[in-house]
């Protein structure tokens, strides 16, 4: 049996201070208190492609952007009930992030699956930003418990429940794993490297199919993202 107790846990306030971000190491577990907001394709497209001002001043609000859509329902009194919360795969948002960091002061992305290390080197490291990945996936009920209040749901009519910008007050919100640090190291890629060493052997003795397929790559050590 493995010793998951060896894994270090830290609790931080959001917005997260630069000194806290600098101290984080990949593989640590983080729990958050404070304010975070959701933003994914719909929000990025509206702000960065259509040029609309964000519905709230993100620079003063918080520096934590969550790639997520909550399972939320509007009750008859107009309030929101959030049940479960699970992140969505982040690699799809790669092209938006350099400008998002520059224009909003965002320093922390929470999402699913991380980004590529070239994204970390080209966008995250220059912006002093890091990536926290949700766990599982997904610990929807645990993260849902960590949401204490929906502070606002911006652009709900324009973008719908899944794509709206939700401003969330959180407490002991986690677990999240530090996937990238300020040097741009990636926990996923370091694990992949270890896994990749053994992959070729798995195919030993298995003859190739008689009809091949075209694909982006036939190198099994590569990721398809």
């Amino acid at each position, binding site marked *: *049996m*493995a*010793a*998951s107790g*060896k*894994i270090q846990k830290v609790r931080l306030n959001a917005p997260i201070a630069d000194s806290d971000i600098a101290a984080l190491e990949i*593989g640590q577990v983080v729990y958050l208190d404070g304010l975070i907001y959701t933003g994914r394709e719909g929000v990025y497209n509206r702000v960065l492609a259509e040029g609309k001002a964000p519905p709230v001043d993100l620079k003063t609000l918080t520096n934590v952007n969550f790639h*997520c*859509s*909550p*399972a*939320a*329902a509007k009750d008859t009194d107009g309030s929101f*009930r*959030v*049940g*479960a919360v*699970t992140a*969505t*795969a982040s690699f799809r948002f790669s092209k938006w992030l350099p400008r998002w960091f520059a224009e909003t002061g965002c320093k922390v992305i929470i999402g699913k*699956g*991380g980004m590529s290390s070239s994204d970390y080197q080209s966008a995250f490291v220059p912006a002093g930003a890091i990536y926290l*990945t949700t*766990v*599982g*996936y*997904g*610990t*929807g*009920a*645990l*993260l*849902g*418990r960590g949401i204490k209040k929906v502070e606002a749901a911006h652009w709900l009519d324009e973008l*719908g*429940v*899944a794509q709206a910008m939700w401003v969330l007050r959180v407490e002991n919100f986690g*677990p999240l*794993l530090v996937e990238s640090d300020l040097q741009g190291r990636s*926990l*996923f890629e370091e*694990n*992949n490297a*270890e*896994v990749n060493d*053994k*992959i070729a052997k*798995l*195919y030993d*003795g*298995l*003859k*190739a*199919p*008689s*009809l091949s397929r075209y694909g982006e790559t036939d190198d*099994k050590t590569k*990721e*398809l*993202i």
Partner: protein
Amino acid sequence: MIPISTVEAAAYDAMCKAAIEIPDDYLTGLKALVATEQGDLSHFVLEAMLENYEAAKADRRAMCADTGVPRYYVKSGNEAVIEGGFVAIEEALRSACARATHDVPLRPNRVHPLSRHDNNNNVGLNAPEIEYSFEPDTDWIEITTVHKGGLFGTDYRMLFPADGVDGIKRFFLDAIIAFGKRGLACQPAIIGIGLGGSKDTCMVLGKQAACLRAVGEANPDPEVAKLEAELKDLGNSVGMGAMGFVGSSMVVDCHIECGFTHTGGMPISIHAFCLSSRRATARIYANGSVQLRSEPNWFTPYMRRNEISWPQVEKSKKSA
């Protein structure tokens, strides 16, 4: 006659149960993997998932906020009579899906593929899907709901007879490795494989194998069962665990379903269910009573029949 309101309520209850409660058979299978997991990070992730299942049940929250694509499987006894017939059943299932989406709440995931319009209730064009099967010599009807993730972990390939088990293993490894990295397949999962059939049947059988068979339930054909066990072990020896971290927890179980196929081909499909394996079944008896459970028992002997005729069973075995 089974009242249609009973069907709607049972479908609603099944949808809530599927979203909130981890099936016992999956949990047992997962715990067996946790006990042997040597990777620290993979082990930590699985411990967090176990805690998540408890939190979901205690708070009556969905286990996962990604609803996937909620759908239904209907198994109707040959003698079942339902108020309003099958058109009424389809309306009841769409209504139950919309109500559960609001009440649990579930994320309204279903959008038009081009306009991206969302009805905010997981109902729309061809959504939720409803598939049918029949059961001889009985008068109950079963409604199974499955919330399966929609984006990663599925593939199809036309193999040929000469490719044999080697071809199957290569295809299996290709998919496991491609979708296992960073945990995009939300592993460890039940892996379903459709083998044979026509192309669409191959996909349907594989998805049903992943979503509608309980962990530990082997295919009754010993040769197929042997391949299931081999593939499970192969998947867990890749070196990847939860979230693609170094480890050994990849496949909770492997299920294969076969269909007679073109004499020149061996089509294969693969489907990964997920760490939340959301499924639940409601059996509605002719007297209107309802029983909820988490094992679908979809693949009955009748479903896997190989002959032209199905023998009549004696009255004593009816409604077993």
